[in-house]
C-alpha cells in the first residue's frame, strides 16, 4: 500500500493488492485510513514552515556567519 501511493508498484502487484483488499477487511480498513493520513501529511509538509527563530538569535547567527565568511 505504501508503494501504491507513489505509483511504484507494477501492474501485477496492483492487481494482487486489489485482490487482497477485496477479501481482507483489515487491510481495507487500514487503506482507508492511509488515504486520510496521506492527504493530511501532504498538506502539512507542503505548507510554509513556521517561524521558530526569534529575531535576536537570528541576527546573532547572521552576524557570526558573515564574520566567518568575510
Amino acid at each position, binding site marked *: *500500500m505504501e508503494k501504491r501511493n507513489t505509483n511504484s508498484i507494477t501492474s501485477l502487484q496492483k492487481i494482487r493488492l486489489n485482490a487482497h483488499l477485496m477479501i481482507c477487511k483489515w487491510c481495507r480498513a487500514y487503506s*482507508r485510513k492511509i488515504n486520510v493520513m496521506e492527504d493530511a501529511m501532504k498538506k*502539512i509538509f*507542503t505548507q510554509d514552515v*513556521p517561524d521558530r527563530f526569534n529575531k535576536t538569535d537570528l541576527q546573532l547567527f547572521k552576524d557570526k556567519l558573515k564574520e566567518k565568511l568575510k
Partner: protein
Amino acid sequence: MDKRSEHIQQWIDTYSETLLNSALFLLSDKQDGEDIVQNVFISAFESYYSFEGRSSVKTWLMAILKNKVAEFYRKKYRHTENVPLDRYFDQEGSWKHADILQDWNEQDENLLDNNDFNKVMADCIDKLPLKWLIPIKLYYLEEKKADKVCQETGITTTNLWKILQRGRMQLRECLEFNWFNIL
C-alpha cells in the same frame, strides 16, 4: 569585497531565516539546525562559481540544505536498524488487533481544513522517532521520489517503505487516541 563575498553576505541576510526554519523543521533541534545552515552557506561560498543561475538562489540553497540534512542522517543513523512491525502483525503476517477495523469519521469533508485536527496531526508527527521522521519529511519534501531519498540518506528502498509504514502505523494510533477517540 569581491562579488562572491558580496553575494554571500546578501544571501545570509535574505535567506538565513527561511533556511533555519526549514532546518529546524527537518531536524527538530535548534543547534543541529544552525550548524547545518552554517554548512549550507560555507558550501555555497565554496561552490559559488558553479552556480549557473538555472534555478533561483533560494531553490539552490534549499537543495544544498536537503543534501546536508541527508548527510547528517547518514552519519547519525549509519547502522540501519531493522524496522519492527511485530507490534502490529503476528508471525503469519496477520493483523494482531481488531481496532484497525474501527472506521474514522472521515465523512467530515472539511477535516483537513480543521485547524484543530491539523494541530493534532502535526503533534503526532513530531512524536515519531527522529530516525524515521527525517526520511519521512525528506520523502514528502522531495515530492515522494523514493529513489532520491534512499540515495541521499543511504537507506534501502525496502527500509524506506518499512519506515513509512511503521510511521503511519504509529500516526494512526496517535490520531485514534487523540482525535478519533477510538483507542
